[in-house]
């Protein structure tokens, strides 16, 4: 009488409890238990690592806020296709990241090793201000709001001054990066595979 078939058709509470427990048990096997084990490994990996530079941390927060990880992966597979992006990702690469942003799409290229591939501050600033100024085919959004547009003369004492053609900025004006742009580029330059 109290067969599964009986419960399935007559006992809503028992059915709910059973399917809930089956689900919780399977979730324990496939997600929670492995995650707990991996967490121990992660803790061992990051023990003794120096904390991240505050500017890198702020830059990472901007990377998360702007959803960069929807289009840029940080996940290199051990395959031929992924060879331009560096060596295959290891658990150690993700251990220090909170949260890691491996991503599921490559609308733009992988950034696991971009700090080695493209270390130029100026390239990164120009590309952030308007990606088309560096890569005409790019479909990345411009992040112009992380820059101040000023007259060329006003920017004389600035460490970074972006001069662009009139396609991207009004004549006589230049762009200077805000602290947020500097933080974001600091973060991108910190993405180096050891």
């Amino acid at each position, binding site marked *: 009488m109290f067969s599964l078939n009986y419960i399935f058709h*007559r006992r809503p509470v028992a059915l709910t409890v059973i399917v809930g427990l089956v689900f919780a048990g399977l979730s324990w096997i496939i997600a929670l238990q492995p995650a707990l084990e991996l967490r121990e490994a992660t803790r061992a990996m990051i023990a003794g690592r120096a904390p991240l530079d505050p500017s890198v941390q702020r830059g990472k927060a901007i990377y998360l806020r702007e959803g960069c990880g929807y289009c840029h992966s940080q996940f290199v597979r051990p395959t031929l296709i992924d060879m331009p992006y560096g060596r295959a990702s290891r658990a150690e690469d993700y251990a220090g990241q909170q949260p890691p942003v491996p991503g599921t799409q490559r609308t733009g290229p992988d950034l696991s090793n971009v700090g080695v591939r493209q270390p130029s501050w100026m390239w990164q600033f120009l590309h952030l201000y308007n990606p088309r100024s560096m890569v005409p085919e790019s479909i990345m959004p411009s992040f112009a709001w992380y820059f101040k547009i000023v007259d060329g003369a006003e920017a004389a004492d600035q460490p970074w001054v972006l001069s662009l053609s009139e396609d991207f900025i009004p004549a006589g004006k230049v762009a200077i990066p805000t602290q947020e742009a500097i933080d974001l580029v600091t973060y991108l330059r910190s993405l180096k595979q050891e």
Partner: protein
Amino acid sequence: MDHETPTVRLIYMTLLSAAVWLALASLYGVTIAVKLWMPEFLPYEFASFGRLRPIHTGGVLLGWLTLALVGLAILVVYRTSRRPIWSPRLGWIGLGLMNAALIAGTVTLHLGITRGPLEYREWVTPVAVLMAAGILCHGWNLLQTLIHRRVEEMYISNAFILGGFVWLPTLYVIAYLPGFDRGVEHMVIQGYYMHVILGLWFTPMAIGITYWSLPRLLQKPIYSYSLGVVAFWSNLVFYTMIGAHHFVLSPTPWWLQSIAVLLGVGMMIPVWSTVFNFSFTMVGSWAVIRREPAAWFILAGTINYGLASLQGSLQALRDFSQITHFTHYTVAHAHWAAYGFASFFVFGAVYALLPRLTAVVDRATIRPYAAWHFRFALAGITIYFVSMTISGTVQGMRWSAGLPFVASLDGVSPYMFARAIGGGLMAASHFIFLWCVWQLRPAWQLRPAAEPARGPIPVGPETQAPE
């Protein structure tokens, strides 16, 4: 039948909210589709691609599909337990909480308040708590209604619905559980969450509801009750286990990925049980199917479910995944499944059940509009799917040919344009849908149901004897 009025209003308002979120979220979708083709479109901070994308995915998955499935679940439980909903007030609280979460989620994501690009769990914790509280209100309400049902046996739809309402909150708790916020363990939880929400919320709910809408529409029992039971249990066991396929060839444990690949192929058991069951139910009812757009949606949804799931099983294979992962191919797949399958089942159920429920407009009046909704939606998803599948293949092929990354951008631009057209057609169809739902609103003074239940009502296995 006055006592049923609050239940009908609650169901209707939930479905109307869902339709509004669908129209809104698909406008976000079209906007980001245009941005991928014309990157200088709307170049503002609050409207940048990275901020709009989670609003689109959250809007369609948690706004449209979740609200619509909740509304239809209330409808199915109300009808199959032959009594009004246990507490309409709790239902209104649930609806209010979910809408509050959706508004708060949309605003916070616009402002850049987010947990980061963690698919489908971008909302910050307080917003997610509102959503979970709303789901729990509805779940409790439906459970109480089923406990106090006025029939002896629960119909199979209710098993799927009860399951969905216990799995989603459990999953939500695991997804927002603190302590897994770094390292590979984060990827394990992310893969698990982003797949299980599809497999143990949208899938069982959409199927469970169709187990009611299809027999009601065709006025005959489901082909095989047992196949439904097989699908229920096998879906639970297989679908829970396959989330790791989102990170194939990653440093997540190899055994985890292998289980995901293997059981991903096993998904054919629940999928084809359901597909065969719905197909054989439809056999012989061609007159109704030709006439009713609701049936077109369910028929197309059944085909899409079978094929998109087969594609999903293939995509999980390591060799296949190497080429298609990271490309638009996976975006095409996601839209085919979430739209061509789950949303089509929901559209079908709304057109099949809502006119009967509110009984103010004759279903024949709505039919031509529903037909245009179907044509636009089908054309839209087809253009979207085909263009994105080709574009994903082009990306994968160019990358494996060792061409520089920009070559993949160059090659896909025309397909990005086609994608925006497909998205525009779908969005247009959603405004027709919104209009139809509005036409079907209940009267202030609700009359007794104009169309009393006819024909055999499939409640329980014993009604399955051939007529």
